[in-house]
């Protein structure tokens, strides 16, 4: 029965999208809290380089994308420490170089006829059963890691030095966060593509803020809102024959606008503020 269900490409697409959104939303909350949106963008733009390397070395693409993303993320953190260039300059240089390098590398590989658009904007309708499995594994590991790191990560986000004095292993937790972001990017690449992954993380989280009274509520709501956007986007893309990845992001955006048009009194808040 399950096998029959997975035969339907729309069903596979929906399942893949829901799984990715369920983990991209909560992680997105951290991206928003820590002001890492541009950082996430830079790392996800380097994912294409991972694809090229994977093809070149004949390795698993998802694994290679994860590795390259982690490497770029660590490189970024190290370069930011030197503080010779402003952070946004550095991120800009790396984001665009990594993307261009990836595109150049992919087109260089002989015999490989890649649909560049599929990597840039996602190709969720082409998700196969194997892809579904790797998304499930990657997303599952990421979600588990997020739950494990939740408290120390939150402490770090509120005040890094305070957390360090209180015994949070700062370096380790930060590395964990890098790994998390890389895992989610690898999983989300097929759904929305390298150019739009950050949108799937930050837009649902930003929408969730209006309804949330605790960090946990915001994270869980972000996951739910992201899943709604995936459902709506898939439906819209089918209905209007539009590219699926961008349609999902448009759906998320519409949700964001809608949430912010709601009058404040309809939104439960805490502390009487």
């Amino acid at each position, binding site marked *: 029965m399950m096998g029959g269900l997975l035969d339907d490409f729309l069903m596979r697409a929906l399942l893949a999208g829901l799984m990715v959104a369920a983990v991209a939303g909560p992680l997105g909350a951290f991206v*928003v*809290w820590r*002001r890492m949106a541009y950082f996430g963008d830079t790392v996800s733009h380097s994912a294409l380089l991972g694809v090229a390397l994977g093809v070149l070395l004949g390795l698993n693409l998802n694994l290679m994308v994860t590795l390259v993303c982690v490497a770029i993320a660590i490189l970024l953190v190290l370069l930011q420490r030197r503080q010779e260039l402003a952070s946004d300059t550095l991120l800009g240089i790396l984001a665009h170089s990594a993307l261009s390098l990836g595109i150049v590398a992919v087109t260089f590989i002989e015999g490989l006829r890649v649909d560049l658009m599929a990597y840039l904007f996602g190709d969720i309708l082409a998700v196969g059963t194997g892809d579904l499995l790797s998304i499930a594994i990657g997303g599952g590991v990421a979600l588990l890691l997020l739950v494990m790191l939740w*408290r120390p990560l*939150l*402490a770090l*986000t*509120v*005040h890094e*030095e*305070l*957390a*360090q*004095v*209180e*015994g*949070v292993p700062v370096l380790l937790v930060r590395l964990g966060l890098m790994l998390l972001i890389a895992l989610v990017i690898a999983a989300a690449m097929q759904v929305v593509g390298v150019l739009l992954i950050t949108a799937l993380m930050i837009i649902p989280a*930003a929408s969730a*803020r209006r309804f*949330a*009274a*605790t*960090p946990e*509520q*915001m994270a869980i709501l972000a996951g739910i809102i992201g899943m709604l956007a995936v459902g709506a986007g898939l439906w819209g893309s089918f209905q209007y024959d539009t590219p699926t990845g961008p349609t999902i992001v448009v759906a998320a955006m519409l949700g964001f606008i809608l949430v912010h048009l709601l009058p404040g009194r309809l939104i439960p808040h*805490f*502390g009487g*503020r």
Partner: protein
Amino acid sequence: MSRKDPTEPAAAEIDASPLLAARDVSLERAGRVILDHVSVQVRPAEVTVVIGPNGAGKTSLLRVLLGLWKPGQGRVQRRRGLRIGYMPQRLQIEPVLPLSVRRFLTLRQRAPEAVLREGLERVGVPHLLHKPVQSLSGGEMQRVLLARALLNRPNLLVLDEPAQGVDIVGQGEVFKLIDDIRHETGCGVLMVSHDLHLVMAGADAVICLNQHVCCTGRPEEVSRHPEYQRLFPETDMQGIGVYRHDHDHVHDVAGDVHEHHAGCGHARRPGPGSDSR
């Protein structure tokens, strides 16, 4: 709230070895000398204050002592079993992070609501427990930070500019609160401040820092030291109101003195400049 004899906990814990000490610590950052052969110690049940001009390396010294930064040279010794309650200089939390005071207090360790309420009560702000942290004023935030630092019953309280962003009246209250807490709990206090008047008054030991240790000693001694007078030329000796705080009264939550024994020498001898600068 029961009040203990202020001398009791300190006397019970007579172990004169320092809680925390830096021995010949030097630190360079980006080719600039920040700390130059600095040796300091923080003794139990004492208020040790690090003062110095801007860029003197006060916060850097604190970071080294806390173990956040590794010194380039020298070492830092901590007494065994040292529990540090740290109050950072300021805390700015993104408005996009929904965080109540209650949640903020329990970020690292869970605690029953009664304990949290009691902790906030001690610093005079029990009504803030369920407020979003972003809605607090500067003074309220400092009090919440202090309550948090006290949660794990520290034997050393480390405070980085505890009165930052608090108005003049509030500053006095914050320092008085710290002084009271130190007498109640017998914990040592290490504090960095640039506000000489308020801080020197309650200190047991003052370390005047300007990359190197210019002078150390009791506040009266330091204020007479030529190096100190060279660093802070505008503060002549009389500018500092040294007051010894005798605890013969009770403070209410707002920090007001409630019960005043007749003849009690609430020995505040404000110097001529202590309230005017």
